[in-house]
C-alpha cells in the first residue's frame, strides 16, 4: 500500500493525538509498524533493511548543562521522558535529537548513532558566548553564541542533525577528517542534517531550502544560514563576516592548511551534487538520495581517506543496487556529480582495489 500520509505526520499523530483521538493515534501507530511498500526497486541490500523494524525503538536522550564553563559533560538536566525544562537550549536539543533519531530509525532502520541504541548525549550552554557546536566523539556540544554574530546553535535542526551525523560517520565509514575525505565527512553531516530538517517539516526537495544553520545568525548579519547546499557560496554576504567562501565546483577546490584542509569549504562541492540530484528527482529526498547516500556510508566499501571521485562511484553503485542500473535515481546521481565537475572513479563496481565490504555495524 502506498504511504499517502508521510511518516513524519504519522509520528506526530501517533505521539500527540492520543488523548483526544485515540483511534487516530492507534491507526497511525499501526501504519508506522507496517513495512513500507515494495517500491524501492530491485535488489534491496539485505544487510540494510528498508523495512521498519518490528518494534520501533525510542531514543535515549540525556541533556546536560555546562553552565557557561568549558567543562564536559556538565550537569544532567533532562533525561529521556522528562518534561520540558523551560530552558530553550535544553529543550531544543532534546527535541532536535528526537527528530534526528526518528529519521535514522524510521527511514534507514538505524537505531541511534551506533545502530544499537546508544544514548544520545548533548551538552548545552558550553562556554562563555561560545561561537560553536561540535561532536567530541561522545557527545554533541552547543555554545550559546556571542549574541552579535551567532545567537545560539540549538535553534537549527540541521545543525543538531549535522552534529549527530558526525557520530554516525565515526561509527560507519570513518572518513578521515582531513582534505577530501574530511570534506566528505562534513558533507555527510550537512546532507543528513538537511534531511533531518526536511523530514521533520515534511518538505519535499522542491520546498526545502537546503540551508545548513538557518536562524543561528543574529538579525544583524546579512545572511540566511551558514551554508547553502544547493548554491554554495551564497549563504551570507556581510560586512563583518565577509562573503560565504564555499566552492560549488571541483575546479574551485580550495587547497589550504586551515581547518584540516578546508573541510568546511570544500564540502560545498559534494553538497551541491547531492542537492541537485535530489531536486532533479523531486519528492522526498530521504526516499532516494538519502537512501543512496546512507547505503554508501554503511557499505563498508568507502576508504577512510576516500576521494570525491571514489565516493561518487560508491553512490552510483548503491544507487544501481537499490534502484536499478538504468533507474532515474542513478541517472540523477550521476548528473549531480557531473554538474560539480566530479568524475566518478572508473571501475566495474566502483573499483576492484577497494576493500572487501566490512560487515555492517
Amino acid at each position: 500500500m502506498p504511504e499517502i500520509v508521510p511518516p513524519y505526520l504519522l509520528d506526530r499523530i501517533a505521539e500527540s493525538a492520543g488523548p483526544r483521538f485515540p483511534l487516530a493515534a492507534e491507526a497511525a501507530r499501526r501504519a508506522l509498524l507496517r513495512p513500507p511498500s515494495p517500491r524501492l526497486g530491485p535488489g534491496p541490500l539485505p544487510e540494510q533493511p528498508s523495512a521498519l523494524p518490528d518494534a520501533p525503538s525510542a531514543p535515549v536522550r540525556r541533556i546536560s548543562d555546562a553552565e557557561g564553563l568549558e567543562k564536559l559533560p556538565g550537569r544532567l538536566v533532562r533525561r529521556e521522558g522528562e518534561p520540558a525544562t523551560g530552558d530553550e537550549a535544553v529543550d531544543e536539543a532534546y527535541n532536535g535529537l528526537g527528530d534526528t533519531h526518528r529519521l535514522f530509525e524510521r527511514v534507514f532502520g538505524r537505531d541511534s548513532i551506533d545502530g544499537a541504541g546508544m544514548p544520545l548525549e548533548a551538552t548545552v550552554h558550553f562556554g562563555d558566548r561560545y561561537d560553536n557546536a561540535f561532536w567530541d566523539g561522545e557527545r554533541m556540544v552547543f555554545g550559546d553564541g556571542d549574541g552579535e554574530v551567532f545567537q545560539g546553535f540549538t535553534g537549527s535542526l540541521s545543525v543538531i542533525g549535522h552534529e549527530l551525523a558526525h557520530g554516525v560517520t565515526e561509527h560507519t565509514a570513518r572518513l578521515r577528517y582531513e582534505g577530501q575525505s574530511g570534506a566528505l565527512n562534513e558533507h555527510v553531516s550537512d546532507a543528513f542534517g538537511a534531511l533531518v530538517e526536511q523530514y521533520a517539516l515534511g518538505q519535499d526537495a522542491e520546498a526545502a531550502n537546503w540551508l545548513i544553520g538557518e536562524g543561528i545568525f543574529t538579525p544583524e548579519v546579512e545572511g540566511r544560514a551558514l551554508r547553502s547546499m544547493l548554491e554554495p557560496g551564497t549563504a551570507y554576504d556581510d560586512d563583518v563576516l565577509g562573503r560565504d567562501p564555499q566552492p560549488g565546483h571541483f575546479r574551485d577546490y580550495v587547497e589550504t592548511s586551515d581547518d584540516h584542509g578546508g573541510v568546511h569549504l570544500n564540502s560545498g562541492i559534494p553538497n551541491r551534487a547531492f542537492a541537485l540530484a535530489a531536486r532533479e528527482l523531486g519528492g522526498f529526498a530521504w526516499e532516494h538520495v538519502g537512501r543512496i547516500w546512507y547505503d554508501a556510508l554503511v557499505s563498508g566499501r568507502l576508504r577512510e581517506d576516500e576521494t570525491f571521485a571514489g565516493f561518487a562511484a560508491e553512490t552510483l553503485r548503491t544507487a544501481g543496487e537499490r534502484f536499478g542500473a538504468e533507474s532515474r535515481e542513478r541517472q540523477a546521481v550521476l548528473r549531480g556529480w557531473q554538474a560539480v565537475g566530479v568524475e566518478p572513479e572508473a571501475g566495474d563496481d566502483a573499483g576492484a582495489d577497494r576493500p572487501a565490504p566490512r560487515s555492517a555495524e
Partner: protein
Amino acid sequence: MDVIVQRSGGLAGLRLTWQVEVDAQPDRDDWVLLLDELPWHEVPAAPPEPDRYVYRISCPPNEVELAERQLTGPWQQLVERVRQTASPQRGGAPRRPGR
C-alpha cells in the same frame, strides 16, 4: 616582534586572526617572558575532532598548530591575552599549504 593567533574551523568554518605587536605593548617584558616559556617544540599531534577549532600560533621563527583541546596552560594564557589586546580580523584568503 609580532605574535599572531589564527583560529580556523568550527562548524561555521570561519577564520579569525588576532595580531599583537609585542614591542609596542606597555608590558612588553611580560609578553616576552610568556613567549619564551612556551613549549614551542613539544606539541604532540592530536586527533582531529569534527567541527572544533584549530589554532595556529606564530611568533617567528616559531609556529605551532594546536587542537582546541590542546589549548591549555601557557598556550591558553597567551591566547586569552592576545584576544584581550587585539581585535580579531575576519576572513582573508585561506592559507596555502606548505607555507
